[in-house]
Every structure is written in C-alpha cells, then in structure tokens.
C-alpha cells in the first residue's frame, strides 16, 4: 500500500547539513548566509527571492544583483509573492549569465516547467544555475497570519519572521514569539497548497528547510554543484543528525497526510487537483498504488 517514505516526503538527496550563520540566530539569516556564499563562490550573479516589505505590509518578489544587496533582503517563507513574474524582465533585460532562485516548490515548478517546455520565456531561461528550494508546508496569506495571531488574542498582530521549530510553526516579532501547531496552521492554508505533494522542493539543487534548532537550519543537498557551497563556507556547518531530518520529516508527513485527504475529498466531488494532467485522478491512483515502485528522483535542469 501507500507509504510516505522518506524518498517521497523529502526527495532524493545526497547529503544533509545543518547550517548556522554568524550573528543573530534566525532561519532567514541562515538562508542569507547561504545566498552570500553562492555569490562569493561565483555560483550565481543574481538571485530572485521573496522579501517582506514591512512598510507597505506585503510580500513582494525581489531581484538581488550582488552580494551587497543580500543585506537588505528580508526573506519571508511560505508566501511566494509572484517571484516568477519578474523572470521575463530579468531574463530579457538584464541577461544574467548565472541566475539563482530561492523559492518554494511551486516557484521552482514554474521555472522547471519553463525550462522543460520553454513556454513564455526565451533561451535566457536556460541561464539558471542554482536553484535553492525552500521547504514549504504551504502558503498562507498575510491576512491568514493576522487571523492566527488574533486567535492567540494578540492585540497588535505584527511579525517579521516565520519559521519552523519543534514541529511547530513560529511567528515572531521583535519582542514576542508565538507558536502554532500544524493543525492550527493548516486551516488558514492557501487552497492550492492543500493539494501539494512536493513540500520539500524536490526539483532543486539544494533544499533549505526554514527550521531552527539551536540556531541551526537543515539543508538537503541534491546536486554536486550545490555541494560546493559547503567547502570552507562563511557559516558554521555540521553534518545533520538523524533527529534533525526526522523532525522535518514528521512535520512534512503530517501535512502530506492532510493534503492527501483534501485531494481525495476533491476527487469525490470531481474537483480537479493540481499536478496531474489529462487523466488526473487516474494518475493519482497510479501514485497511490505504485509509489514504492517508482524512482522518485526529480530531474534538475
């Protein structure tokens, strides 16, 4: 029968590390350190990501053109901000040779699809050299975050960080930290994310898990290219313990199980779910019955 094996929940990876940036311990700083390292090692000359714009109160895509600009970058997880809408401009106008992307699985799906089919982009889309996938438990709207905080009777629902810790989702502002269980969080999830089967951004060179454990975040390395990031890096790096991986795995499993329920619910009513073309649900049964037989490695272009 169907089993949520590690290969499915996390995808195939070659190495797992935990990383910690110097300075304040936060998962967004750890991601920034990773991006800086990529710039320093000349793996990329520009990268797109999602940044929180506190002033205007929304999340928007940003394009970082050099290492210096990483400082101003405020990565925000679990909201995409339409990263790929920048692509056309970047690839056509700026014509970078080594482009990086730090995004969730659906952003990478968009790029992977573009690279595979070429729809909507020209040759320049082949210039992507480093894909940093961000493990995502599902996107939530800013209003959703506000509601979550209101549920906790927070009077002034401000926040500037979101990450995973101890199987919980943490929202943090300058002074306070609020934690939410998967169940609480799942309710406010974007509908599209409730049918997602790719929480760990399998189609990437490296997956960054926005988790925090003693200041360390988990990264799963999938390609040889990404391994370079861990040769004498500017951040402290350790081999990931079994428990580090298992922590995220169990959270991901938790969400995947809920997602499968949602998909079946949709199937019952004949509402399409994503990622299955043509005979969508036929394909889902195939998945249901044959998951262990499949080689579930994803191709990175």
């Amino acid at each position, binding site marked *: 029968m169907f089993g949520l094996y590690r290969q499915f929940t996390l995808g195939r990876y070659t190495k797992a590390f935990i990383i910690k940036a110097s300075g304040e311990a936060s998962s967004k700083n750890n991601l920034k350190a990773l991006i800086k390292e990529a710039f320093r090692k000349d793996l990329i000359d520009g990268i797109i990501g999602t940044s929180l714009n506190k002033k205007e109160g929304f*999340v928007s895509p940003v394009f970082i053109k050099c290492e210096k600009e990483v400082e101003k970058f405020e990565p925000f997880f679990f*909201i995409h*901000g339409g990263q790929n809408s920048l692509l056309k401009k970047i690839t056509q106008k700026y014509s970078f040779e080594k482009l990086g992307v730090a995004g969730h699985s659906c952003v990478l799906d968009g790029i992977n699809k573009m690279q595979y089919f*070429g729809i*909507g982009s020209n040759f320049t889309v082949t210039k992507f050299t480093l894909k940093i996938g961000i493990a995502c438990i599902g996107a939530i709207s800013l209003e959703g975050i506000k509601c979550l905080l209101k549920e906790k009777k927070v009077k002034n629902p401000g926040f500037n960080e979101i990450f995973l810790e101890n199987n919980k989702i943490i929202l943090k502002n300058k002074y306070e930290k609020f934690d939410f269980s998967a169940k609480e969080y799942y309710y406010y999830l974007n509908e599209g994310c409730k049918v997602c089967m790719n929480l760990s951004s399998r189609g990437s060179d490296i997956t960054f898990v926005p988790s925090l454990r003693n200041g360390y975040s988990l990264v799963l390395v999938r390609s040889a290219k990404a391994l370079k990031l861990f040769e004498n890096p500017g951040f402290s790096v350790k081999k990931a313990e079994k428990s580090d991986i298992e922590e995220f795995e169990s959270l991901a499993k938790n969400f995947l199980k809920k997602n499968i329920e949602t998909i079946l619910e949709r199937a019952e009513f004949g509402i399409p779910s*994503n990622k299955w073309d043509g005979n969508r649900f036929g394909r889902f049964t195939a998945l249901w019955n044959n998951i262990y037989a499949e080689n579930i490695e994803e191709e990175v272009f």
Partner: protein
Amino acid sequence: MFNPLKRGKILIYSFDNFDKEIKVKLGFFHLSSCSGCQIAFLDMFEELPDILDTVEIAYSNMLTNRKEIPKLNVAFIEGTFSIGFKHHIKLIKEIKEKADIIVAIGGCAAFGGIRRLNVGAQSPQPSHQASIPITELDYLKGKIKYVIPGCPPNPYFLYKFLLALLELNEEFLRPFEHMVFSTFASGYDILMEVVNKGLCTGCGTCICACPTKALEFSKRTQRPTFNKLLCVGCGSCLAGCPQSFKPYPQPVYG
C-alpha cells in the same frame, strides 16, 4: 544527432515516400496571419543549423524556392482559416493530402488568437470577415496532431518542440496533443482553471508567459489580475502555469 527512427516507438510520420533520405520534411504554411510564427522559427539563431541536420525545410514560401508543395512529414500551419476564401480551401485540401501530420503553430491557428476579433467590412474585400482556427475544422480532425500555443511561440519553445517531435518524446508532446481539442483560449483560463479552482499558489509564472501584459501580479492579493482588454487569446498563460499540466520529469506523479 537525433534518430527519428527511434526503436520501439510508433512513428507518427511515415517514411515510405522517401528513398534513402531520412530527413524529416517540414513544411510551413500560413493562412490569415502575420508570419510571426515562421519568423520565430528563424529566431532559433544558433540552434537552427543543428536542427537542419535532421530536418529539411521542404516547403515554405519564405525560405524555399518552390511553387509546388511536396510530400511532407510535418506541416506547420500558422494563422486562421478564412471562411469562404478559395485559396485557403485549396491550400488546406492540398496540405491534408500531402502532409502526414499537421501542427497548428501559434495562438491564431490553435485558438483563434487575435483573429477572433476580426469583423471584416474592411477595404478592399469586406467579405473577408470570418476567421476561425484550424483546430475548429472538422475536415482536419485527426490530421492536426499538435497545437503550439503562444503569440508568438517563443523560439526556445519551438526548438524544444522540434526536438521532442524528432525524438518522439511523448511525455513532452502529450499536453500539446490534448490542446487540439480546446479551440479557444484566453486569460480567463487561468482564472477559471487555476485561481477559481483554488489551485493558484501565487508563483507568477503566467505573468511571465503573457506576451501582452494582460496578466499582472497583484501584490496585495498574491494572485494574477487579468485585463481582458489586452488579451489576444494565445493560450500561453494556462500552458505556462505549473498547476495546469506537469509531465516534465517528475515520475512521482505517474
């Protein structure tokens, strides 16, 4: 470079009519259109010579010095069929007879595109008023094997498509085979099939795919906004959306 006679796969085009040459013969035809799709083909600048090793452009009014249409493996047709226009009737009949398969290239041939807005009544032949995509012609049912969306389909896409066609990469081609049955496209597709079905995650790929900026990203709602005024109905947005079809190597899903 590519072997069009790949073993173990069913050939969609026959080679009976050619002696020793196994170059795939392509033909480019245009009905009521701007020639942009053919130029997009020429815009695969450096990749074009590679492709020309395995395929031969056997007929194109722009590129070959030939008046008769030879036997073809694949006929690429761009533009819409103008109802009642004698030359189109003649041409379509001839292509059906001479080509093994037809590929409708570009938004016009596939979904009508901007030609759907045509109302005629213009000098000097006001009767040319009805333009329909060739996918709507019952006469060509079964003959049109694939549809290529886009206005214009970008050269990289055409390059990938040609490779897939030569390698008979069914995974790649399948969605374009399905698209033959949809004879209309617009930005509403993305609203209807993705946003409205609760499948949109706000990644912004459709905005990148839109050639007219009819789709834009709303930072406030994290969703695409659609301006129907600017849409030319090329079908790029839904085809580009990662939630629409996903047969690129992800064996997990099937």
